[in-house]
């Protein structure tokens, strides 16, 4: 965990009082809605269909139990008793009152949480691998660099009014759990042939109306130069990114229009001017931030304790364990994913009671730490394997032990037309229906790893382009229709899915998905050939035939 010091605390308190003043000026009419809009967006406040929506940042997906309790408190005190975890390590509340927002922010500030730059045309929450610091084989903890970037990007005087929003993601593992290739800047931490640690820098990834997979702009940037290199990219973008058309304003369009070589050259020229500046991260500066992260003192524990051997006879425990428990860098410990995808529930939602209970369990079994992943699930990152059976019972009791992690019903979905003013179609009921169709665990297990992503509009908050199966809500003559893509993925082999054919009606979506899954089961070469692999091997055609032959 990163511990805020006095300076970090002072800054967020100053932010809270600034926003309190801004809200006051809005309520008194001194600020017009147009002027206020940008200010509230920079504090994560959207105006949605029914009410204000409030988005709070969970930097690089790490939470303490105290912080999670504060999130529960906000849900209970200022909202309707629940929150929604998003695909970018944020939590959203849907029913906040404007006049109460400054108080909610002040309560969160007490535990070092804020909503700065969770919306608006600025640098957004820096996201990372939810297993950072505990994943086996990781180069080093990417959260040190995420925190350096969090500080660097917070209230940046030059880059707070960019052409469009700007998102960073960092990973330090060979398997990318942070979806860095669909971010404006993706950073892959690795050690080069000389043994030096640095970053492969990718730029111009993003979904939305014009999806692009990020391209490598520089294969190796040493850690000390990270901030100056990022500043060079942001400066080129701030000056030359398009501002005439909101749909062409992201950096991906600039990179696409200039070409990656030309863009890289512009950045390089700028970088050489600022490379040796106050932005250089001397090792002492990096160590200073590193020293503010605390790590658990692990015990020496057996890999296969008695408790686990005994529980292995319980098939219900076993199916959960196989599905939700992952290897940890320390022997005797495990990473446990908590599914926020119950059958029939809205993906990514947690009630205040669940959050409080998870915080208690984290204190008891995970050194007080919780993680939030872009798949809209939570994780307990340091669980002793001997505690798994008792933890499972406790998690099951509060409804977060559905054994469907990475399976077909572990659906990623945006809030859609049930909440969002941008949406063209509903996402949540589609997800709910699909979880019912695939509620049978044995079937889901037989299907294997399969990610379904649903977005209620082209803005793609549900990352539908990179779902193994992507579902995109569109509107045709006032009716909800859905385009289906297959073969997308968000990991180190990121790819955009391909459209299988004409959009289908709301009532047909679940049937179509079932058809696609059945086609896959019939077509796969081996039981362990994943859905995406079958699509890669055979292309869209056999799936198209299966879906449209009878429609």
């Amino acid at each position, binding site marked *: 965990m990163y511990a805020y*010091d006095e*300076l*970090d605390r*002072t*800054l967020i308190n*100053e932010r809270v*009082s*600034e926003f309190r003043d*801004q809200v006051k000026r809005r309520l008194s009419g*001194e600020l017009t809605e147009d*002027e206020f809009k*940008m*200010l509230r967006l920079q504090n994560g406040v959207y105006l949605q269909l029914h009410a204000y929506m409030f988005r709070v940042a969970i930097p690089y997906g790490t939470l303490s139990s105290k912080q999670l309790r504060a999130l529960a408190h906000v849900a209970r005190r200022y909202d309707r008793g629940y929150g929604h975890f998003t695909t970018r390590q944020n939590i959203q509340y849907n029913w906040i009152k404007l006049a109460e927002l400054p108080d909610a922010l002040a309560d969160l500030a007490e535990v070092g949480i804020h909503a700065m730059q969770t919306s608006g*045309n600025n640098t957004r929450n820096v996201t990372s691998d939810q297993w950072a610091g505990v994943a086996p084989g990781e180069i080093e903890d990417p959260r040190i660099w995420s925190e350096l970037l969090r*500080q*660097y990007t*917070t*209230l*940046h*005087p*030059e*880059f*707070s*009014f*960019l052409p469009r929003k700007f998102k960073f993601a960092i990973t330090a593992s060979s398997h990318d759990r942070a979806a860095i290739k669909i971010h404006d800047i993706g950073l892959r931490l690795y050690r080069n042939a000389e043994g030096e640690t640095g970053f492969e820098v990718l730029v111009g990834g993003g979904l939305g109306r014009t999806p692009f997979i990020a391209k490598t702009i520089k294969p190796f940037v040493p850690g000390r130069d990270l901030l100056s290199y990022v500043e060079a990219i942001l*400066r080129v973008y*701030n*000056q030359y990114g398009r*501002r005439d058309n909101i749909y062409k304003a992201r950096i991906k369009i600039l990179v696409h229009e200039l070409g990656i070589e030309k863009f890289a050259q512009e950045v390089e020229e700028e970088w050489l*001017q600022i490379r040796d*500046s*106050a*932005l250089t991260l001397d090792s*002492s*500066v990096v160590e*200073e*931030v590193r020293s503010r992260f605390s790590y658990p003192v692990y015990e020496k524990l057996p890999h296969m304790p008695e408790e686990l051997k005994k529980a292995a006879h319980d098939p219900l425990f076993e199916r959960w364990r196989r599905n939700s428990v992952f290897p940890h860098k320390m022997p005797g410990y495990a990473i446990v994913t908590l599914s926020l995808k119950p059958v029939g529930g809205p993906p990514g939602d947690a009630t205040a009671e669940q959050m409080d209970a998870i915080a208690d369990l984290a204190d008891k079994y995970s050194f007080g730490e919780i993680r939030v992943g872009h798949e809209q699930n939570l994780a307990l990152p340091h669980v002793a394997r001997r505690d798994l059976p008792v933890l499972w019972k406790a998690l099951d009791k509060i409804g977060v032990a559905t054994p469907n992690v990475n399976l077909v019903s572990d659906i990623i979905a945006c809030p859609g037309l049930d909440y969002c003013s941008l949406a063209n179609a509903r996402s949540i009921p589609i997800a709910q229906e699909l979880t019912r169709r695939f509620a049978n665990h044995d079937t889901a297990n037989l299907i294997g790893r399969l990610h379904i992503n649903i977005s209620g509009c082209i803005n793609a908050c549900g990352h539908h382009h990179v779902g193994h199966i992507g579902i995109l809500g569109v509107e045709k003559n006032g009716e909800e229709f859905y385009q289906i893509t297959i073969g997308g993925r968000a990991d180190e082999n990121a790819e955009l899915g391909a459209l299988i054919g004409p959009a289908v009606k709301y009532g047909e979506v679940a049937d179509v998905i079932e058809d696609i899954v059945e086609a896959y089961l019939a077509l796969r070469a081996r039981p362990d050939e994943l859905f995406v692999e079958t699509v890669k091997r055979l292309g869209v055609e056999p799936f198209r035939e299966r879906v449209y032959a009878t429609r």
Partner: protein
Amino acid sequence: MPLVKGGRIATDAFVHVADDAELPGDGAVLISAARFLENPEAISRRLGKTGVIWPNNRDVDDLVPYLDRLAVVALVFPTFRDGRAYSQARLLRERYGFKGELRATGQVLRDQFLFMLRAGFDAFEVKKEADAEAFTNTAKRYSVFYQPTGDGRLTALHQRMQLRHSESAGQ
């Protein structure tokens, strides 16, 4: 539109002269980039100071050769959402060493003052009277800064390093 300079409301010594209006023989003037670049030599020979309004979609490189003759560079925020002039300001101050007045014009509102100060602006044509009056207080809203810019404010990281230094020196 009040001008804030040196932290307080001041009278503007510069007269905005439109492109089709005659340039007065003396006195401080603020003119467009296009007019200035038509004949920078002649304009610089005038009695009276020169200020140039530089558009936010043109590289400041084109202005760099003339910076030592200019008393004011005014950068433009067509709306407060358009942040290009922040980059221009930092380049003029930090890379090209411009020492004259750097003026923010356009939709200049209270909530951008501190960003502008940090980017190197020292004069502000403020849209609203109330915002101009609130300048001093608004500029003091923050005491912690995460990024180094040319404004000399110490960053949080470096404050921490200093603190650590003084702690270890005291032991």
